């Protein structure tokens, strides 16, 4: 049996034993997050493994995917739209137009002081116009019933549609970022993308008109065809079915919902892997790897390195965006405050590296394995800590240690990453 077959069987066993020892509910929850993470890790792998691009802004693209769910599937807030919708749109268009004009002028004019001066003037005038148009509109929208709305809402379309839109949104952002930052040296790119992600999340946290900021948006519709547990539990035919098999209706309804997600997410993941594998072994993929291994030689052979990098940056980011949208539509709510770079950027990185960067199946393995570890430690950590601190007398220290158990995860992951980098830098399933 090949190495990857052994590893994947072991992983299956891990999930099955989690189901048997703890509960199927837990095992399925972990599996769902694992599948989502695998998709994200696939995105990272395409950038890092195929092209050696250091994108530490994964969190930002995940968040953009989440935003797409709100924009597509939330109900529109009509009063908000009437109050300031057109104003905000006009403001945003003005802002975009200013940037476009600046870039146009910059590229057209001869180098020199005049060019700098004119660019600055355009930017200042544009900024003032932007603020004059958008500020009152934002205030109008945000003062519309701030306790329950204060935003523009979405289009009220099916949630499933948000998945590709999430990818699209992330792709657009990646294009803009890539255009400016991709020429940079690898570690500069890492710092720049880290910053971009923080800014994207800051916008989502603070622009209430967009997605209510930290007030969060909940009750986003589920993607078709996933049913709601409460509906299932009242459905006579479902109760009949459960009774016939001797299942508890509550448990079985949650399991059915989760199974739906497992199937749906797999239906996204598997074609993505298939496509990625095809791409990797196509002339295009070989060229990408050639560029990664020797950028100078590749560009000497007439390959447009920056252009290729832009392609791959957009591709990888949009995959992350899709996963971000899938996650938010599953959770049914958008909580901008929950986007944390450790969880949504660096954890995904660990998955891609541990799995084996450059190998798509490696990313899946890493995603499923690290997610399992991450979530199992989350649910078992406190209990484990109670056992570990058994010898310590009750008091603040013990309480403190038990309460801090979740942070053990960061430590453990850091150690795993370091160990893998040191002893098996090519990951569990190395690139062929």
């Amino acid at each position, binding site marked *: 049996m090949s190495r990857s077959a052994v590893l994947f069987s072991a992983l299956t066993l891990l999930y099955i034993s989690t189901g048997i020892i703890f509960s199927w509910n837990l095992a399925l929850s972990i599996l769902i997050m694992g599948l989502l993470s695998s998709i994200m890790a696939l995105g990272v792998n395409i950038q890092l493994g195929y092209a050696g691009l250091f994108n530490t802004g994964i969190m930002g693209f995940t968040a953009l995917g989440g935003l797409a769910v709100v924009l597509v599937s939330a109900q529109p807030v009509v009063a908000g739209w009437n109050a300031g919708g057109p104003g905000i749109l006009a403001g945003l268009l003005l802002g975009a137009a200013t940037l476009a004009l600046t870039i146009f002028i910059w590229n057209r004019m001869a180098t020199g002081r005049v060019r700098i001066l004119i660019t600055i003037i355009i930017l200042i005038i544009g*900024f003032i116009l932007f603020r004059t148009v958008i500020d009152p509109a934002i205030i109008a929208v945000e003062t519309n019933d701030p306790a329950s709305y204060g935003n523009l809402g979405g289009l009220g379309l099916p949630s499933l549609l948000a998945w590709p839109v999430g990818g699209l949104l992330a792709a657009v952002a990646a294009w803009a970022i890539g255009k400016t*930052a991709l020429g940079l040296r690898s570690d500069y790119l890492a710092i720049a993308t880290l910053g971009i992600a*923080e800014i994207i999340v800051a916008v989502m946290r603070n622009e209430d008109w967009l997605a209510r900021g930290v007030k969060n948006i909940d009750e986003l519709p589920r993607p078709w065809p996933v049913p709601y547990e409460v509906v299932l539990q009242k459905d006579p035919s479902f109760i009949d079915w459960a009774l016939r098999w001797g299942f508890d209706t509550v448990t079985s309804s949650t399991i059915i919902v989760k199974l739906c997600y497992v199937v749906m997410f797999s239906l996204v993941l598997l074609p993505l892997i298939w496509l990625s594998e095809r791409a990797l072994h196509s002339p295009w993929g070989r060229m990408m790897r050639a560029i990664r291994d020797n950028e100078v030689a590749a560009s000497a052979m007439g390959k447009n390195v920056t252009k290729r990098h832009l392609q791959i940056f957009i591709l990888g980011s949009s995959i992350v965006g899709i996963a971000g949208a899938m996650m938010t539509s599953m959770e049914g709510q958008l909580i901008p405050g929950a986007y944390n770079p*450790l969880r949504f950027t*660096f954890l995904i990185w660990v998955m891609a590296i541990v799995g084996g960067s450059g190998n798509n199946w490696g990313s899946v393995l890493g995603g499923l394995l690290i997610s399992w570890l991450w979530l199992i430690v989350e649910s078992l950590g406190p209990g484990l800590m109670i056992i570990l601190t058994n010898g310590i007398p009750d008091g603040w220290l013990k309480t*403190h240690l038990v309460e801090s158990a979740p942070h053990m*995860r960061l430590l453990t992951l850091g150690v795993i990453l370091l160990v893998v*980098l040191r002893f098996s830098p090519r990951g569990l399933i190395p690139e062929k």
Partner: protein
Amino acid sequence: MDFLNALIAFLNFVFVPGLAYGAQLALGALGITLIYGILRFSNFAHGDTMAFGTMVTIYTTWGLQAAGITLGVLPTALLGLPVGIAATAFLTLATDRIIYKFYRKNKALPTVLVMVSMGVMFVLNGIVRLFIGVEEQNFADGERFLISTGDFKAMTGLAEGLAIKSTQAITVIVAVLVVTWLFWFLQKTRTGKSMRAFSDNEELALLSSINPDRVVQMTWIIAAALATIAGVLYGLDKSFKPFTYFQLLLPIFAAAIVGGLGNPLGAIAGGFIIAFSEVTVTYAWTKVLTYVLPESMAPKNLIQLISTDYKLAVSFVILILVLLFMPTGLFKGKSV
């Protein structure tokens, strides 16, 4: 028109806070730049190294306070600082020995080292959260103000007050002392010169029989001291929260890059550039403008270019502009 009051309002809300913040960033950026210059990689764990040093200092401070030892008008944390520095130096030396040394000997690519430093960042992040939690901690004690608004108004009879927090004054004084010492060390001492030589031309430094291990160790010790001092000063001035320290990574890197990576003077200049830009852009200028402009033109609502929530965007934009238009920074840094 009232220029004097406008000036005081400007000093109070922009200049003084910017100065203190700039000093803190400069110290952080110095650490980044030294590591980059000598160990030749971007250390993503620096923010968390700052957090670690600050955490040890906080615990020492609490211990001292519990034992009834304080520094009177000065914050007790200054007494705890040496302990924090020692612990952090021990930590950085240990990480170098256990982790980085292997990659150095194998001449690993800088990108690999960046990934490794991310691993270290995770571990440090975990340690800090494990020991002190994720909550905000205030550990400043002693006199709160060098000059309070009220005192200042009484003294000068002006309508505007100028408050100088003692932590701001301490930040600036400590930063000046540390930077002076560092420059003296790098310019005048044998070890300092050997560090500069190593950063300038590693091969030739080896040919001159400069001991690379000693240079590397010294670098880690100094970086640890700088990180701890920067972290403690920032924590005293604002407050300590692990996640904030992680986020400081961006402005600190921006400062180091703007000044020119590997160039200590540049790191200091970069720190102040970032800090003042951030404060200027996010400050609501209404008050100052009301004093300066004629009454008819006085602004009615907030004149704030960008909300403080987007202060990270400021460092980011400066960073990108510098990288695009002068990749080696304002002061010529390394171009590896």
